[in-house]
């Protein structure tokens, strides 16, 4: 029971965090901030998926989290590489 | 939930169409991507919405409709391939013509800029 | 022969362990698969990892990991405090140059990663010769202290492990 409340709390936190991310996404002073926000959203999404797995009591969504971790990284690096060098594969 | 999903479909579609109506290749491709988001989710909803009923036999009693999911998989893959192609064509067009306009001159002859 | 079979033995071991984490079960079949993948994948990828790094003290690496984990958790609270409560004007961010004694790419990468994961600091760049790291500290009234801590607490340990 208490775990449920804690779960709801954390889900609420993540939801709130996502809304904060949204704000940053739009008033980002630099392109880096936008990429950073996207990365943060990815991490929050991982948390969300993991927590949903806990909530629903299945492990069916963990691979999604694995992939999110992997691809979030690749994506962020690619955006940065683009800013840094223009060509992401050179 | 249904309303949320439906409105998201509508939003993706609207944004997609608006961007497709732009005059440069890149926004058009972005628009197509948005449109495919909308359409893929639309196709997904053909199986109706359900939570925690993943169609993995043995994990529950009732399952979400697996067929639209399989169809969406196919659709995602196909739209990915198509996006890749049109992207490459956009590059090719830009490099060959020197600009990335989508519109052609009437009669398909190159515009003045193309010649330049 | 063995070297050709296992171009990166530590990688092989890591992969075997990771496979068990992944399949989340201990069965003979899993072991067979783990060993198979642990052998084949380093082979498949060895072309992109041409040189074999030297790890002199593998066990030291484990201890180092534990240390870093602890630092991560503790230091996170400091960052949380800064983010939440410290007035913006009082935050003293600073750039810190960390001259490197380490030479192994793997070790330097590990150091840089450690710096980033321990809150309050981010490894931001490397000198064009590879002999200094640029670290940004979120709140460092005394930048030299940051440098000294890093060199003493992490780099020294890594030096022992790798070189």
């Amino acid at each position, binding site marked *: 029971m208490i775990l449920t409340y804690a779960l709801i709390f954390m*889900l609420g936190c*993540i939801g709130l965090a996502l*809304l904060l991310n*949204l704000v940053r*996404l739009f008033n980002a002073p630099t392109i880096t901030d936008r990429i950073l*926000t*996207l990365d943060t959203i990815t991490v929050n999404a991982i948390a*969300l*998926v993991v927590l*949903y797995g806990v909530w629903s009591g299945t492990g069916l969504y963990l691979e999604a989290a694995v992939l999110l971790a*992997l*691809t979030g990284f*690749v994506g962020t*690096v690619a955006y940065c*590489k683009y800013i840094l*060098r223009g060509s*992401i594969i050179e | 939930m249904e309303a*949320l*999903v*439906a409105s*998201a479909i*509508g939003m*993706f579609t*609207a*944004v997609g*169409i608006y961007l497709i*109506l732009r005059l*440069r290749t*890149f926004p058009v491709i972005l628009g197509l*991507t948005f449109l495919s988001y909308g359409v893929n989710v639309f196709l997904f909803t053909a199986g*109706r*919405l359900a939570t925690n*009923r993943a*169609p993995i036999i043995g994990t529950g009693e009732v*399952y979400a409709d*697996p067929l639209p*999911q399989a*169809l*969406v*998989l196919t659709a*995602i*893959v*196909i739209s*990915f391939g198509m996006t890749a192609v049109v992207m490459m064509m*956009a*590059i*090719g067009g830009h490099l*060959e013509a020197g600009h990335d306009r989508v*519109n*052609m001159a009437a009669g398909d002859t190159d515009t003045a800029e193309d010649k330049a | 022969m063995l070297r050709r079979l296992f171009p990166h033995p530590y990688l092989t071991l890591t*992969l075997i362990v*990771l*496979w068990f984490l*992944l399949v989340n079960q201990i069965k*003979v079949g899993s072991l067979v698969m783990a060993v198979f*993948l642990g052998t084949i994948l380093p082979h*498949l*990828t060895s072309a992109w990892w041409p040189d074999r790094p030297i790890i002199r003290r593998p066990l030291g690496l484990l201890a180092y990991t534990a240390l870093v984990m602890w630092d991560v958790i503790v230091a996170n609270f400091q960052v949380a405090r800064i983010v939440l409560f410290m007035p913006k004007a009082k935050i003293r961010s600073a750039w810190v140059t960390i001259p490197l004694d380490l030479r192994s790419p793997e070790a330097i990468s590990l150091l840089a990663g450690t710096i980033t994961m321990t809150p309050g600091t981010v490894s931001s760049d*490397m000198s064009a010769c*590879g002999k200094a790291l640029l670290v940004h500290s979120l709140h460092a009234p005394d930048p030299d202290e940051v440098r000294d801590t890093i060199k003493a607490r992490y780099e020294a340990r890594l030096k022992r492990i790798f070189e």
Partner: protein
Amino acid sequence: MSLALIAALPFLGALLPGLMIRAGRDACAAVTGSVTLLALVLLALNAPTVLAGDVVQTRIEWLPALGLNATFFLDGLGLLFAGMILGIGLLIIIYARFYLAKSDPMGQFYTYLMLFQGAMVGIVLSDNILLLLIFWELTSLSSFLLIGYWKHLPEGRQGARMALAVTGGGGLALIAGMLILGGIVGSYDLTVILDNKELIQASDWYLPALILILLGAFTKSAQFPFHFWLPHAMAAPTPVSAYLHSATMVKAGLFLMARLWPVLAGTPEWFWIVSTAGLITMVMAAKIAFFKDDLKALLAFSTVSHLGLITMLLGFGTKAAATVAVFHIINHATFKAALFMTAGIVDHEAHTRDLRRLGGLRHLMPITFGVALLASLSMAGIPPLNGFLSKELMLEEAAHTVWITPWAMGVLATIGALFSVAYSFRFLAHGFLGPVRDDYPHTPHDPGPGLWGAPAFLVVLVLLIGLFPMVTAAWLVDAAASAVTGEAVQSKITHWHGLEAAALWMSLAAVGGGLMALGAYPRLRALWDAAPRPEAKRIFDGVIEPLAALARGLTGLVHNGSFSRAVGVAVVAIAAASLWAFRGGDHLAGTRDLLPVEPVVLAVWFVMMVAALAAPFFHRDRVVALVLIGVVGLLIAPMFALLSAPDLALTQISVEVVTILLMLLALNFLPKVTPVESAPAHRLGHAAIAGVAGVGVGWLAWSMMIRAPAFDPISAFHLAQSKPGAGGTNAVNTIIVDFRGYDTFGEIIVLGIAALVIYALSETVLRSPSVTRRLATFVPEKEAGDRHPMMLVVSTRLLLPMAMMVGVYIYLRGHNMPGGGFVSGLVFAIAYLMQYMASGYVWSHARQRYDHHALIGWGVLIASLAGVGSWAFGAPFLTSAFEYVHLWPLEEFELATAVIFDLGVFLCVLGAILLALASLSRLALRTGESANTRAFDIDPSEGGR
């Protein structure tokens, strides 16, 4: 059978000139002539039967379902026309042999001529009106080729096009008319139609059919107001003019009116339309002919006039008039063909046809003059020549026909005859009489008999028919007129009808008036030149050219190359049609319980919506747009997870990142910002269109979701059979690799082709010199100093095998748990991409052991073979099998053929993505960047260790 052969012979003959031309011009002409002669002989063999009052028929089934059959019949009318076509055709062939210059491609000429001849013969022999239509249009086509034969002459090209436009257009009306006619009768067989006069004339469709058919006939026969094309067709070589515009093509319209006379004529509509058109044409064209200086133009308008005369006679609707019409057809063919040939000789010899530059030829070319004299006197209606006979009969009929008033027709006919006399004499007087001049472009002489032989022969006929009409022509006239009128005709043709005959006085008036007109020519000419009058060509050009310009303008306006227009129109059309369809049906209230919404889901939804909505506002900064699309794509994945679709979540995540990478790669070669180019109003309009589409699609989704499916979904079967039937617990995967594996088969091929296309395009682009130039001047923005940071490379060394392991895991469990070959392939691809990003394309690719093309090929091949393999067991393509295997010391595991198929999927996906990215990376190499030889830029161990 022989009739079909007669019709077919010219077409077969059309093939010969092209082959024979190498054997020389004589051989070519001889062969062409022999074919025509053969057809003529065959026709003659049938003549006795026809003249005896019988009809010869041939029937070959072609398209019986439509009622279009190759049926031919030969009656008097057909005999007359076929004889004329073949006979004069033969003369023309001979004449043309000597007329055409060495530089003219003679083979081509004869080919066209024979095509035309065949088409004409076909028209007159057809016993099926659809078949007749085919030959009819063929005459338009082949005459187009003949008129334009001298391609280098602009008048020839324009004349040909004008002729085609008018006669072809008329042909289209004729099609409609004939179809209506056939529809009324229920048969397209002429012999049947001709038996149904009452049915046809009582039908509501009679008038439309009549008008449409007459449109066809009038255009072909150059009747007012469609007369204007004929003079312009005179740009053709003279043999063509002689053939087409005296004896044959223009007579096709007359033939048609005569052919259908029994069922169409006799009504007031027929009378008013046909006789009026004929009368106007006759008078007007005769008047114009009088003022024409070009010999051929004069003859052309004269032809128009005579056609009008015959049309008028047919229009009267009486048996007698029809008989006269038939007679005049014969007479006109003889003298007019002769005259055209004469004009051609003059042109050939004097190098001009302008009456103002001629005169006095009587002395220089007496034979030609003799021919011209007889023919033009006949044209003028001077006794005892054949033209006189039919003109007298015509005037007599006109005098007795009431048209508006009792006398109007007679007066107008006389005026027509008057001009006829006038231009005929002018032809003679200004061309041949008078003194010999010294300023001919070329001094003319009588040509050899090759040229004058044919007209001379015709003039002999003119004379003979004139002198002995009852012997030479009456039998043919009777036979033909019987066919036209459907009753037995026994004509009596005489030179003298008595003093009480109106025609006598009308004739005298015409001759007298004509001579007076010729005398007053200079003054009349001045009047004529002063009067404003419509120039046909200018009117035609004034219609057609603006029409073409309008078409060009419209087409350019509608198809202006605007993509946004195309999409905008499409969206509006789809939305409108869908709305219309929706409102035409019923949609009842929802039947399902809706899912509740958790706050966190609301938050995710909100972020997703706002990020999407932001895209139109921020899209000009393209990287920002990519970040936004990244956010949206990323958040769709947890949504799929939440909605019980783990496989979709996996796929969405991995496809998304590959898409983003691709777009970043692409953006490097594209402008970084999108300029503002459309006006605010435009953007607002686009936003409205987009909004409509969004609301519509969203509404559809909502409407669908709130109701349960009308029938049990077929997926119940998939869920039930997933484990027992397909051997996997992941129903989505069993659908993908088994139940609907064929979809997946297509899908991986799509992906594979996509990569091939990208590769091919990159090859092409790289080969293009302009691209090479552009790439060489490629100046990137401010750049970082290091390309391959060490830390990324080092971590990739660990992550690469780890990611691959995850890929293997996802592949292996896919059948039972979320995952499968597709996602696995993507994970592998992402892993490789990571490597490529870390150490660069050249360095990484050099260490890549597998050829991307081959990966795709093998993927497709394995998937195909996995499908084909089931044939060996007599099962259909892609039939799967699975078995649980127990192999000590391993736990029991499953072996499924679907896994082999999935391997094909895996390879194809991997190969496709790698090939696509490799293609893009090769472009980057052309920007002048150097290739690295080491994994990372800065190696601290260098010299340190």
